C-alpha cells in the first residue's frame, strides 16, 4: 500500500515537474516583457524600472545568449571553446561601426579624425547602412568561425588542444584590436554613440525596444536550441561527444556536424554582442580578453551543461552576484568567482540544474 502510494507520488511529481518549470519560465518571461514597459512609466511612479536596472538586466540577457551558444558546442558537441568572447566582440564591433558612423554623420568617426586619417579604411564602407551592418554582425563571427573550424576539425583537433587554440585566437584578436592602426579605435574602442536608426540611443523608448529585442533573441535562441536538441542532429552531436570513433564507423562525418554547430554558435554570440553594445554604450578590445571567455565557460559549468536552461541560470546567477559583489566588496569578486567554480566542480558536476533535478526527484 505504502509502496503504491510512493510510486503514485513519484508519478505525480514527475508529471508536475515540467508543469512547474513551464510556469516558472512563463513567469520569468512575463517579468522580462513587463520590465521595459515599466521603464516607460514616469520616474516618480512606484513601479518605475530605472535605466540602470534595465541596462543591467539587458546586459545579463546578452550574456545568457552567449552561455546558451557556448553550451550548444560544449554541452552537446563536447567542444570546449575558451574563445567565444571573440565572436561576441566581433558582433559588437560590427554594430559599433554602424553606431559610430551614425554619430559622426557625414564626417569620419571621432577617433579617426584624432589620428588625422582622411579616408575611411575599405572595411568601413557601407557601415552607415544599418542592413549591411547587420549582415556584418552575422558574417564577421560566422566566417571567422567557419575558417577556423574548417581547419581545426579537418586536423581533428579536439579536447584541451582545441580549447587552447580558441583561447589563443581570442587573445590574438584582442592584440589586433588594441592597435590604433587596425582602425577600430584602439584600446578605447567605440563609445559616445548618439542615435540608432535615427532614434536617440539613451531615450527610454529606444532602451525598451533594445531590451525587448534581446528578450526576443533569447527566446528564439532557446527555441532553436530546443529544436536542435530534439532532432536527430542533436542526438548525433551527443553521440559525437561520447564516442566519436563509433560515430565515424557508423558512417557519419563528424566534421560537418561540428562545423555547423560551431558556426551557428558563433553567429548567436555575434548577435548577442550586437545587442549588447547599444545597451551598454561601449565596446573595446577588453571584451576579447581570455578571462571573459573563461568566465562564459564558468557560467555554463555552474548552470549545468548539456541542458538548455542550465546555462541561462548560470549566466544569470554569476552576473547577478557579480554586480552585487563589485558594489559591496569590489576587491573580493575574483576570489568569490574562483571559489564558486571550485565548489561547482567538486560538488555539483551537473551544475545547479542537476541539483534542482535531484531535489525534484526526491
Amino acid at each position, binding site marked *: 500500500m505504502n509502496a503504491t502510494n510512493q510510486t503514485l507520488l513519484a508519478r505525480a511529481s514527475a508529471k508536475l515537474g515540467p508543469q512547474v518549470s513551464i510556469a516558472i519560465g512563463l513567469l520569468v518571461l512575463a517579468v522580462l516583457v513587463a520590465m521595459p514597459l515599466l521603464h516607460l512609466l514616469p520616474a516618480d511612479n512606484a513601479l518605475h524600472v530605472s535605466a540602470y536596472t534595465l541596462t543591467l538586466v539587458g546586459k545579463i540577457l546578452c550574456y545568457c545568449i552567449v552561455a546558451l551558444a557556448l553550451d550548444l558546442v560544449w554541452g552537446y558537441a563536447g567542444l570546449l571553446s575558451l574563445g567565444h568572447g571573440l565572436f561576441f566582440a566581433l558582433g559588437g564591433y560590427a554594430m559599433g561601426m554602424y553606431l559610430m558612423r551614425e554619430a559622426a554623420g557625414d564626417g569620419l568617426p571621432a577617433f579617426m579624425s584624432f589620428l588625422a586619417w582622411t579616408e575611411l579604411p575599405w572595411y568601413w564602407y557601407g557601415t552607415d547602412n544599418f542592413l549591411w551592418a547587420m549582415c556584418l554582425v552575422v558574417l564577421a563571427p560566422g566566417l571567422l568561425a567557419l575558417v577556423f573550424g574548417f581547419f581545426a576539425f579537418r586536423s581533428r583537433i579536439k579536447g584541451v588542444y582545441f580549447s587552447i587554440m580558441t583561447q589563443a585566437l581570442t587573445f590574438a584578436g584582442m592584440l589586433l584590436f588594441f592597435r590604433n592602426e587596425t582602425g577600430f579605435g584602439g584600446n578605447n574602442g567605440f563609445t559616445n554613440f548618439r542615435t540608432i536608426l535615427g532614434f536617440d540611443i539613451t531615450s527610454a523608448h529606444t532602451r525598451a525596444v533594445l531590451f525587448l529585442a534581446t528578450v526576443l533573441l533569447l527566446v528564439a535562441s532557446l527555441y532553436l536550441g530546443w529544436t536542435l536538441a530534439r532532432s536527430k542532429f542533436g*542526438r*548525433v552531436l551527443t553521440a559525437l*561527444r561520447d*564516442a566519436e570513433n*563509433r*560515430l565515424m564507423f*557508423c558512417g557519419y*562525418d563528424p566534421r*560537418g556536424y561540428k562545423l555547423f554547430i560551431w558556426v551557428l554558435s558563433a553567429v548567436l554570440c555575434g548577435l548577442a554582442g550586437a545587442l549588447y553594445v547599444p545597451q551598454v554604450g561601449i565596446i573595446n578590445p577588453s571584451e576579447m580578453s581570455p578571462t571573459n571567455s573563461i568566465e562564459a565557460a564558468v557560467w555554463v559549468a555552474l548552470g549545468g551543461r548539456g541542458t538548455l536552461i542550465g546555462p541561462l541560470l548560470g549566466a544569470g546567477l554569476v552576473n547577478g552576484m557579480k554586480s552585487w559583489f563589485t558594489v559591496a566588496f569590489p576587491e573580493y569578486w575574483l576570489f568569490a568567482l574562483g571559489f564558486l567554480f571550485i565548489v561547482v566542480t567538486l560538488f555539483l558536476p551537473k551544475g545547479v540544474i542537476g541539483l534542482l533535478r535531484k531535489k525534484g526527484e526526491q
Partner: protein
Amino acid sequence: MRATPVPEFMLEPVFDAAGSGRDAIGASTLASKGLNVRHGTILTLEDINVSFDGFKALTNLTLYIGVGELRCIIGPNGAGKTTMMDVITGKTRPDNGVAYFGETLDLTQMSEVEIAQSGIGRKFQKPTVFEALSVFENLELAQKTNKSVWASLRAKLTGEQKDRIDEVLQTIKLDASRQRPAGLLSHGQKQFLEIGMLLVQDPQLLLLDEPVAGMTDAETEFTAELFKSLARKHSLMVVEHDMGFVGSIADHVTVLHQGSVLAEGSLEQVQNDERVIEVYLGR
C-alpha cells in the same frame, strides 16, 4: 630466430575461380547493390606492411575473405589482429600493400567515413555505444540512411525504419530496455547493442573484434547462432580468443602470428598444425 616457412595454401583465396567450398559465382550475387564482387572475394589484403616507430605490426599480410563467408581470426596477443582491422577500416594507413573492398574500392585511399558508408561495419573490442542516448536512439543513429548534416536536421523515422529497429531490438533481446540509456546496460547487453547497431547499418562486411568477451555462456551460444544466420547474406570476420566459440561458428580459421598469416584452414586443421601449436604453447 628461425624463419617461418610460408605455407603455400594460405596465399590462395578461399573462394577462388575454381570455387572450392561454396559456389563462388553464386555467392557473389548475394552481395548487394553497387559493390563489384565478380570474383567472389569481398575483401582482398595483399602484402600489407604496417610499422609503428620501427615495430612491425603487420608484415606482408595477405588474406582474402569470400562473399558470404564467416571467417575467424585467431592468434596470440600482439599478433596484429586489431591493427589489421584498423587497416581495413581506414584508421591506420599501411606503409605499403594492397587493400580492396570488392574489386574496385581501394581501402587505402578512402577515409574512415567513406569506408563505413561503402558497407564495412566494425564492432570494437571494448563495447562502444552512445552512452547518453537510449538503446532505441543508438539504433536510430546507426541505421542505414542518408547521414549528412542536412538530412539529420530534418530526419524523421519512417514506419519502415521503426519496424526495422523493432525487429533488431527483438533479435538482440533488448526490447524491454529500449528507452534505457545505453550507459546503464550491462557489459553483455552493450555487446549486443553494438552488434544490433551493426545489423541496422546493414553492412556487407562485418568486422567483429572479440564479440563474446564478457558474455555468459547462454549469451555466447545465442551470439553463435546469430552470426551463423548472418553469414551468407553478409560476410563476417570475427576476431576471438574463445576457442569454443570459434569452433561453433567458423567454417574457416586464419591464424595470425607476428603480423602475418601463420596458417589457414578449418579449426581442426589449424589446431593440428605444428607451427600453430608451437606459437600457442611456446614449445
